[in-house]
């Protein structure tokens, strides 16, 4: 979707604000927000793609005025309600008022280390050979789906070069919406600054994205 999250090339946000000796968290609740998001995700009810889409579906004014952990929590509430774990009554009172759906699993403290060390690899076997190879000239498609996609707006309809064939990964545009993993080959595609940003672009700039095969056509 052309949501508030798709920030590449937008202007007006001001300078970057690096902090010297930045603390891991800027408030105690941020640590709990991070951990509760991971623990709730471990229930196995939604995919990382659905959770990303929940975050980018916040209204733009809300997204831009929220810190990143605020975005996580607002999206997490929506996911928990959508999947039947939490109700509006629960959120209104701050306590369990209604029964919850049954999760696939509940993350236990003694398995946290193993679960985090394993992660959730998204590479899959596919029968098809990669359509493109290193050095191939490609053009990204120009599309504007209402659902989730990982092709940023600034890189749509642009001519680039395949630099590397990666692996076949779960396809977020499908997986975010319950359409299945539908894995596709992923390629690192590099663009010149001029192709992306036109006249006045930094002549020394090269930008790459990682693009699923269906984002690309031969150029």
């Amino acid at each position: 979707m052309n949501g508030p999250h798709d920030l590449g090339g937008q202007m007006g946000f001001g300078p970057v604000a690096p902090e010297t000796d930045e603390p891991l968290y800027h408030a105690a609740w941020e640590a709990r927000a991070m951990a509760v998001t991971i623990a709730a995700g471990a229930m196995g009810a939604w995919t990382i793609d659905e959770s990303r889409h929940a975050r980018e579906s916040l209204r733009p004014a809300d997204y831009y005025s929220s810190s990143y952990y605020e975005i996580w929590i607002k999206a997490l509430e929506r996911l928990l309600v959508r999947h039947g774990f939490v109700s509006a009554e629960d959120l209104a009172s701050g306590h369990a008022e209604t029964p919850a759906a049954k999760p696939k699993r509940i993350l236990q403290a003694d398995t946290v280390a193993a679960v985090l060390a394993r992660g959730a690899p998204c590479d899959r076997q596919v029968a098809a050979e990669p359509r493109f190879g290193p050095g191939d000239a490609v053009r990204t498609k120009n599309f504007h789906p209402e659902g989730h996609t990982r092709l940023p707006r600034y890189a749509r309809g642009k001519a680039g070069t395949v630099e590397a064939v990666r692996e076949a990964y779960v396809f977020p545009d499908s997986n975010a919406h319950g359409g299945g993993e539908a894995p596709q080959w992923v390629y690192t595609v590099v663009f010149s600054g001029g192709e992306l940003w036109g006249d006045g672009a930094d002549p020394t700039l090269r930008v790459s994205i990682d693009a699923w095969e269906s984002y690309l056509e031969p150029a």
Partner: protein
Amino acid sequence: MSHDHDHPHHHADHHHDNELDPMAARVRALETILTEKGLIEPAALDAIIDTYETKVGPRNGAHVVARAWTDPQFAEWLGQDATAAIASLGYSGRQGEHMQAVFNTADTHNLVVCTLCSCYPWSVLGLPPVWYKSPPYRSRAVIDPRGVLAEFGLVLPGTTTVRVWDSTAELRYLVVPMRPDGTKGWSEQKLSALVSRDSMIGTGVVDVPEALT
């Protein structure tokens, strides 16, 4: 719940108001609800927090970089199969399942961003800093990387290629900065202490502090 406000809202006040901070209350309520329903175990949350406070952070990445600087065979492996090479040092898992190392050279400086969210190589760098997840960095890294780097105090020669990696898929990037001059014969451990988090994102380079020269 509406978050629209008809009057100016002073976000800065939140930092001084722990008890009444609406986000603190909101997160506490959510954790309470999920705990009461038996959907999460609070001790598991503690273990997750402890992992990223004490076990997983930029020292992991610095170890990888220092090994690459001192062991050419490891550096070659890191370039070809970063996931396996990094796992051989004990770093793997969440937000580092698929890794790619990109090496700075005299001609090319690498910079990593995620314009669409906050993808970051947690297994080697830990939790991302706030600026990495915020609109100024995410919006400008791909269109004005030199301007961004200048805000970190880094000015590159005008002839250097600036290569920006937008992490749009599940591949996570680790920048291997150039080994600084004047470190011949240094141990892996001594080198590792030089490697900053920012140098592995690409918003910094590695210098030898004057005190060590």
